[in-house]
């Protein structure tokens, strides 16, 4: 079992560091992330600017931290929304099955079949751009994957003896679903959340990269990456720092999620 602890330890430390940096960035950043400084345009990493400056002379480290904050916020809210609604749908469809199961699964298939990019754009353009609308758009897209996983677990659990036992004890359906069965899906849920987080960060970054996600002046790693392409050769640190922060964010949380899932999961 020791190997899995490595995942949890490594993931735990990495995500703790990232969260710490992001929380600090909410109150203090080496420079004001939006302060332009025409003298120090595209200067390489130096003591003054640890990660250098961008084409408007803004400090990349501050922008990257704030950008990571937005991305983390969106990813966490998206996964939360997707997981909660996914569990609700998955639980009912898995436990009861029947016509309800068919209808909900059809809707889930529709959402998955739909190019996430277009659905996100539709929602963002109806409600107007902004961080919380992106969350709504992405959250909707993540429900099917959670619903499907939870449905599988519940369908399997419904046949187990301890569910019959719970019925014998006089437990109501809701209690069985959320007090008895749910804790047993912990390991599957945790790994699904780890993967969900990975996809959420990716989706937010890609949407901002294409210019429809988080809009300026809110900082976003995706948009920084798209802007950095113009200065790829003369200021590669601009692209690299934004990209590496995304990777660290994803790596930290996925490792943590997988480690916890493996530890709590009976089937290794």
């Amino acid at each position, binding site marked *: 079992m020791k190997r899995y602890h490595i995942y949890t330890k490594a993931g735990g430390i990495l995500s703790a560091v990232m969260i710490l940096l992001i929380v600090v960035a909410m109150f203090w950043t080496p420079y004001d992330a939006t302060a332009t400084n025409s003298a120090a345009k595209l200067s390489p990493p130096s003591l003054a600017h640890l990660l250098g400056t961008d084409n408007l002379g803004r400090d990349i480290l501050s922008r990257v931290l704030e950008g990571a904050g937005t991305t983390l916020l969106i990813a966490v809210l998206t996964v939360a929304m997707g997981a909660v609604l996914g569990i609700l749908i998955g639980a009912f469809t898995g436990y009861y099955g029947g016509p309800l199961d068919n209808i909900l699964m059809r809707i889930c298939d529709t959402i998955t079949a739909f190019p996430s990019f277009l659905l996100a754009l539709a929602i963002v353009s109806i409600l107007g751009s902004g961080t919380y609308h992106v969350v709504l758009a992405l959250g909707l897209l993540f429900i099917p994957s959670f619903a499907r996983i939870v449905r599988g677990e519940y369908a399997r659990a419904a046949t187990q003896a301890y569910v019959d036992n719970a019925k014998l004890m006089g437990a109501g359906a809701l209690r069985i679903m959320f007090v008895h069965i749910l804790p047993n899906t912990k390991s599957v849920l945790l790994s699904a959340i780890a993967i969900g987080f990975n996809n959420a960060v990716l989706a937010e970054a890609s949407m901002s990269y294409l210019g429809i996600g988080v*809009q300026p002046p809110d900082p976003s790693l995706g948009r920084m990456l798209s802007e950095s*392409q113009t200065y790829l050769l003369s200021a590669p640190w601009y692209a690299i720092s934004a990209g590496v922060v995304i990777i660290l964010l994803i790596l930290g949380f996925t490792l943590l999620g997988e480690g916890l899932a493996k530890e709590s999961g009976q089937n290794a």
Partner: protein
Amino acid sequence: MKKGRRFAALLMLISAVLTVALSGCSGDRAGTASEDDISNTPAGLAINVGLAKDLDDSLDPHKTVSAGTKEVLFNVFEGLVKPDSDGNLIPAVAESYVISDDRLTYTFTIREGILFHNGDPVTADDVIYSIKRCAGMLEEEPEALVTAFSVITDVYAEDDRTVVISIASPDLEFLSYLTSAIIPEGYTDQATAPVGTGPFQFVSRSAQENIVLKRFDEYWGEKPEVTDVTFKIITQDTIVTSLRSGAIDLCAHLTPAQAAEVSGQFDIVKGGMNSVYGVYLNNSVEPLNNVEVRRALCHAINVEDIMALVFDGEGTPVGSSMYPAFGKYFCEELTGYYEYDPDKAMQMLADAGYPDGFDLKLTVASNYTQYVETAQVVVEQLRAVGVNAEIEMIDWGTWVSEVYANRNYEATIVDFDASTMTARALLERFTSGYAKNISYFSDEEYDASFAEAISATTDEEQIAAYKRCQEILTEQAANIYLMDMPDMVAIRSDLEGYEFYPIFVVDLSKIHVKAE
């Protein structure tokens, strides 16, 4: 057992062969690309021109709307007359023209032996068909495509090489409208396979990929040295990479930052974007309806700082709705009208009843980096005087319908170019009657001087009236006029001959290899 192992070995073999073969052949194939500059067939000069946005617009010269399409089609179509790089109108399809004393009848003589790209000669009927089509005088295509042509009363052929156009009232600028393209009569698919008389003819087009032109060998004028042109559609972000990799040889409308990135490898030709770049204000909205507030905002904006940050110090400031390339109309003295003085701005705001500023929504289209970066700098400058500006980014489609068509916005950042080479195109927008008056600007004196300008009979009269219009716009601070953005063109170091025109045009006919 054997089958199993063979299955896995086979798989490994395929993947190895695949990867080696591909990287191998890609290695040598692409390696040479940057040296001998792609298919530089000995017969002529082939160049790739970068376009940041696809010509997702009809290729029919009379129906194109976006500036990006017009600048490309300039190489394919010609009107009776066509502009040269200094802004004068030179004969094209028409060899010569005579304007009657009362300026009501224009007589054009068609150039001897001039051919369309499909080999047919240009006849008087083609010219009449083209003019009538624009004026909306054809039964099958009733709607007028060029508004200024509403003035035309009759178009007829005196003989097979002369065409006479008579108009209802004299208009000094009417000749510049006759740059609209002459097309073969009855040819229906201009929208997808255009045929004109220009130095280059249309070959093919693939959506989001390229538009291919080639030299029209029977062109009446001086034949261009460039034989093959491929306009490559690339995204705004990857322009620099494509230039540096040698994928494109020439790219116009670069931001100064992009130009700086490639200055080592390419020659950078500088000129004006020929558009009026500014923060356009909705004068019907609180508190922008108060002229003092608008003047205060003009004082709060530091154009030099914007130019330094966003345009690398390039670009020429403007004071009103006119850009320098229009030499005869441009009022140099209006440029410094509102000197940058934040304290004065705050004072004026206080006097106008806004001691602690106000909230302002700045709606900007997200697909042009210049707009986005300028917006962020403007927000900083306005915050310094207490005005809390908030950026609302929308994509171009939404900007056109929400801001331009429905005018539901407070302030926006955009640049307006002149679709035809006339001052009217830049100033008519602010007359009270104009349907799309973006600033809801209305001033009787302005309307009067504009009317005077368009009905003027002499150049001096027209110039004075247009200048008067500009002065009113500036005094009334209809908008915060910033500058004529720099237009940087990167051209491969062994080529030269790129010329700037006062209107949106990329003329490839004069590009040639530098004489060693």
